[in-house]
C-alpha cells in the first residue's frame, strides 16, 4: 500500500461515458495489496468495463468472500452496493441477494482458494442454478494471504518459492464450469487488458452465470522461476483462441467479418458481442469440442484464453423458477406475502 491516497486530480481530457462520468469516478479506495499484484490490474479492468458500459454505480452489487481477491471490491466503484461475506460463501449470499433483487448487476470477485477449496461446493451449485452474475476468479495458484501455500489450482510440477513442487492434480475452474453447464466461460490474464476488458463486458451483460477465470500473478509468493502462474510463464504460454468485441447498442454491427472468422452473439438485454476466432478450429458453442480442445492444449502446456464457451439459450435462475419480473424487494407486502388463508390453501393441497 501507499501512504498517500491517489490524488483526486485527473487528466482534463479523460473521456466521459453516457452518464457524464469518467473512469476515475468508478474507482474505490487505494489498494492495500502488494505492489504489482495482478488483482490490481483486474480491478482496473473492471473499472474500465463498467465505465464503458455506462453502468449506474447504484445498480451494481459487489460480492466477495475472503482472501486477497476478496478485498478488491473495496478498490472499485465506491458508490456501489457491496457485501464482503464469509470465506467461500459468496455464491450463497449472492444467490440470496439476487433472489431478492433481480434488477441489480452482480459481480462476485473470488480467488482460487475461496472458490476451489473452501467454497468449491458453493461455486458449483451457483453454476448449476445458473445464477445471473459475473463470477470472477483471480487465480494465482497460491494462498497469498497466508504466505503462499499451494492452492487447489496449482499445476503439477509448479515450484513454490521454497520447498517441494506441487504433486496434486489442479482443479481447473474453466473445465469445471464447462462440465456443470455454465453459460459464459472465459479465461484471461491480468496483464492483458485489451482482451480482458471486452470479456468482462460480455460477462457482465450475459444473462445467467458467467465465469471469468483470470490468471492474476501473486507478485510476492508465486512470481518466480518454476512457477506456472508467474507473469513471465503466463506471457510465454498463453494463447488467444477467441477474442470478444463488445458492440455498443448505438453502433450498428459492421458486416466486415467473414463467416467463420467472427460471429455475433446477441445477449438477452439487447446487446451484442462479436466473437473473433484466433484459432479457426475452435468452436466456442460446443461444450464437447471446447472440452477436448482445452484438455489437449493444457497437456501441451498452453494456457488457452478468450471466450471459451457461450450459450445464450439457457434460462437463468429466475426464469427457471418462473418468478415475477419485479424484484421481490420491490413487491408490495400484500403481494409478496399472500396471507394466512392462501398458505392454508396451499398446505391443504399437500394433505
Amino acid at each position, binding site marked *: 500500500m*501507499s501512504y*498517500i491516497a491517489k*490524488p483526486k486530480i*485527473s*487528466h482534463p481530457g479523460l473521456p466521459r461515458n453516457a452518464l457524464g462520468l469518467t473512469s476515475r469516478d468508478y474507482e474505490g479506495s487505494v489498494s492495500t495489496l502488494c505492489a504489482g499484484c495482478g488483482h490490481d*490490474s483486474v480491478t482496473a479492468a473492471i473499472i474500465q468495463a463498467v465505465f464503458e458500459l455506462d453502468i449506474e454505480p447504484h445498480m451494481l452489487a459487489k460480492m466477495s468472500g475472503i482472501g486477497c481477491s476478496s478485498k478488491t471490491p473495496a478498490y472499485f466503484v465506491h458508490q456501489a452496493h457491496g457485501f464482503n461475506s464469509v470465506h467461500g460463501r459468496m455464491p450463497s449470499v449472492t444467490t440470496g441477494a439476487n433472489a431478492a433483487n433481480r434488477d441489480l448487476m452482480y459481480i462476485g470477485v473470488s480467488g482460487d482458494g475461496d472458490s476451489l477449496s473452501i467454497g468449491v461446493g458453493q461455486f458449483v451449485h451457483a453454476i448449476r442454478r445458473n445464477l445471473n452474475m459475473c463470477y470472477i476468479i483471480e487465480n494465482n495458484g497460491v494462498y497469498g494471504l497466508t504466505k503462499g501455500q499451494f492452492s487447489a489450482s496449482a499445476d503439477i510440477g509448479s515450484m513454490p518459492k521454497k520447498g517441494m513442487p506441487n504433486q496434486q492434480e489442479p482443479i481447473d475452474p474453466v473445465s469445471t464450469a464447462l462440465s456443470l453447464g455454465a453459460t459464459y466461460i472465459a479465461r484471461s490474464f491480468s496483464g492483458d487488458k485489451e482482451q480482458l476488458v471486452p470479456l468482462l463486458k460480455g460477462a457482465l451483460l450475459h444473462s445467467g452465470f458467467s465465469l471469468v477465470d483470470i490468471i492474476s500473478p501473486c507478485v510476492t509468493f508465486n512470481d518466480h522461476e518454476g512457477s506456472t502462474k508467474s507473469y513471465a510463464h503466463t506471457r510465454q504460454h498463453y494463447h488467444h483462441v477467441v477474442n470478444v468485441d463488445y458492440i455498443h447498442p448505438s453502433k450498428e454491427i459492421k458486416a466486415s467479418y467473414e463467416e467463420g472468422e467472427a460471429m455475433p452473439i446477441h445477449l438477452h438485454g439487447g446487446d451484442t458481442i462479436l466473437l473473433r476466432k484466433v484459432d479457426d478450429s475452435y468452436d466456442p458453442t460446443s461444450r464437447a469440442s471446447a472440452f477436448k480442445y482445452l484438455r489437449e492444449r493444457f497437456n501441451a502446456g498452453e494456457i488457452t484464453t478468450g471466450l471459451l464457451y457461450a450459450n445464450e439459450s439457457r434460462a437463468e435462475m429466475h426464469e427457471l423458477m418462473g418468478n415475477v419480473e419485479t424484484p421481490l424487494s420491490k413487491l408490495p407486502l400484500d403481494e409478496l406475502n399472500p396471507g394466512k388463508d392462501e398458505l392454508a390453501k396451499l398446505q391443504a393441497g399437500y394433505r
Partner: protein
Amino acid sequence: MKPTDTNNPEYFHKVVDCQWGCPAHADVPAYIRMIAQGQFSDAYMENRKSNVFPGILGRVCDRPCEPACRRVRVEDEPVAICRLKRVAADHRDDITDRLPKPPSKNNGKRVALIGAGCASLTVANDLRPLGYDVTIFEAHDTTGGLMRTNIPQFRLPPKVLDEEIGYILDMGVDLKLNHAIDSLKDLLDEDYDAVFVGTGAPRGKNLEIPGRYDSDRIYIGIDWLESVAFDHVDSIGERVLIIGVGNTAMDCCRTSLRLGAKDVKVMARKPRGFFKASSWELEDAEEENVEILVNHSPKEFVIENGKLVGMKFELMEYKVDDKGRIDRGTVTGEKTIPCDDVVLAIGQDNAFPWIERDLGIEFDQWECPVVDETTMMCGREGVFFGGDSAFGPKNIIWAVEHGHQAAISIHKFCQGEDIEDRLPMGLNLESQKMGMHEWSYSNDYNPASRRLMPHVDLKQRFKKLDIEVELGFTVEQTIEEVERCLNCDMQTVFTASLCIECDACVDVCPVDCLTIAANGDEEELRTRLSAPARNTEQALYVSAELPHTARVMIKDEDLCVHCSLCAERCPTGAWDMQKSTILVPYALDEAQVSQPKTATGGSGA
C-alpha cells in the same frame, strides 16, 4: 520511437518547466523546498547562484517561469514562484559570509563595464572573485540602471536595490558614478583587456503625430519615470492619458496616481489579449482604478491656445483569425478624449550615439549591435554586450543571464582560451527513496489554489510615492503555496530491464500519463495512449523494449504531478523517483576546471 536519451541533460531539464522557462535556469523546485523547510538563507543563496538579485527579482521579475509552470496545465494557476522568491529574500538571515569573496590578489586583467545596471553588475559578480580588476562606468549618480530609474519605488524599494547591488560592489568593484562614456573609442584606447556594454535600451519611442511638439505636457514614459525617480518631477495634471499598454505603461499610470492624477486612462490600440503588459501588472493597475480603453489608435494631440486639452483617437475594429492572429484593423470612427498630460509608453529603442561606427562593431537596421547569442561578443574582439543593449528590450532576468554568459566569455578571452569552447550543462540524478513508501520530498498532491498577494490598503498607498504596495506572503500563505509546487525535478526514471509489465504503475497514475504499448512513430503513438496526449510541446518518454513482450513503456510528460505512486506501486523498482540537478556552468567553473570539461553547477558562487 527511439528510446529517450536521458543522458542528455536537456531531457530532464525540460521536464522542470519553470527552470526550463527561466533564462538563468534558476533551480526553482529546489529553492521552494528549502523555503518549505524554513531554510530561507539557503533558498536565497540557491537563487542568487543563478539570478544574482533574488530580492529585486522576487518583486519585479517578468516571471517567464510562471506561465511555464506545470500547474497551469494541471489546474489553472501557476505556483506563485516569484512571491516565494521574495519570501526567501525577506526572511533570510545575514548571508554576507556566504557571498562570493573578493580575490586575495588580482589576476592582472582589467575589465571595463559600461552602465551600472543588472547586466554589468552580474558580470562584476562573476568576474571579481576570479581576480579581475573590474571598473563600472555609470552616467547617473546612482547604480541600478533601469531597475532604479524606471521601476517605481512603490514596487521596488531602493533599500532592496542598495542591499543586493552592495553585495557585488563590496567585493572591490571600482564604481565610477557620474561618468558617462561618450566615446567607446577613447575607452578602448585605455588599455582594458575587455569591455562590456550594459547600457540598456535607453531611448523611449516617440509618437510623431500632429501636435506632438506643440505642448510641454507630452512625455516619453521612461524619461518621465526617470525624472520622477530623481525627484525632478513631483506632480502631474488631474487627467492623464497613458499611450501604450506594456509594463512601462502600467508603471506610468500607477505613478501618475501618486503624483496627483485623479483620472488616469491607459489607451490601448488593440483589444485585450494583445496587450504587452504582464497579466499581474494589468491586474495591479486596474485594482487602482486605472481605466484601460481598448481599440483606440492615437491620431493627434488636440492643442487649443497653445495648451494641450485632449487627444484624438481613431476607433478601431479588428478581426482575429482561427489561429489567434489579429489583422491590421479598420477605422470605424473618431473620438477625442480630454486630458491635461500625456505619457507615451509605446516601447524602447536602442541608441548608441557614443559608439563610433568605425570600430568594427556592426549595427542592424534597428540600431542594435550584431552580437553572438552564445558568447555575447560583437564583431570587435574583446567588446561584449548584454542586457537590453544587446538584443533590444527584454527584462532583468535575461540581462542577468547575458551577464553570466558574457562573464564566461570575458574570462576565456582574457585567458587566451577559445570563447566558443564552453562547458556544457551537466545533470545529476539521485534517487529520493527513503523507505518502502517514503520519499525525501512532499509527494502528495495539494489541491490548494494560488495564494493572493496581500496589498497595502487602497486609501493608504497613494499617500506617498514610496509606499511598497505588495506586503509579501504571510507565514500561512507561504506554507500553503510551497505545497502547490509539483516538484518537477523529482524525475520518474524508468529501467526497462526490471519491468515485469504488471501494469501497476499504469493503473495507479492519477493523470493517466503511462501506457505500455507496441512502439510506433510519435504521431501515431500519441493516438494510442491511456489518455489523450495532445500537447506536442511536452515530450513522450519512451523506454527500451520491455523484456517479456518487447512492447515499450511510454510516459506523456505533460501532466505528471510527480506524486511517486508509479514508483511506489512498482514491485521491481523499475520506476524510481530521482532528483535531477541541472549543472549550469558559470565563469567560476570555467576558471576552476580547465580539463576535463564538466560543470559543478556554480558550487562556489
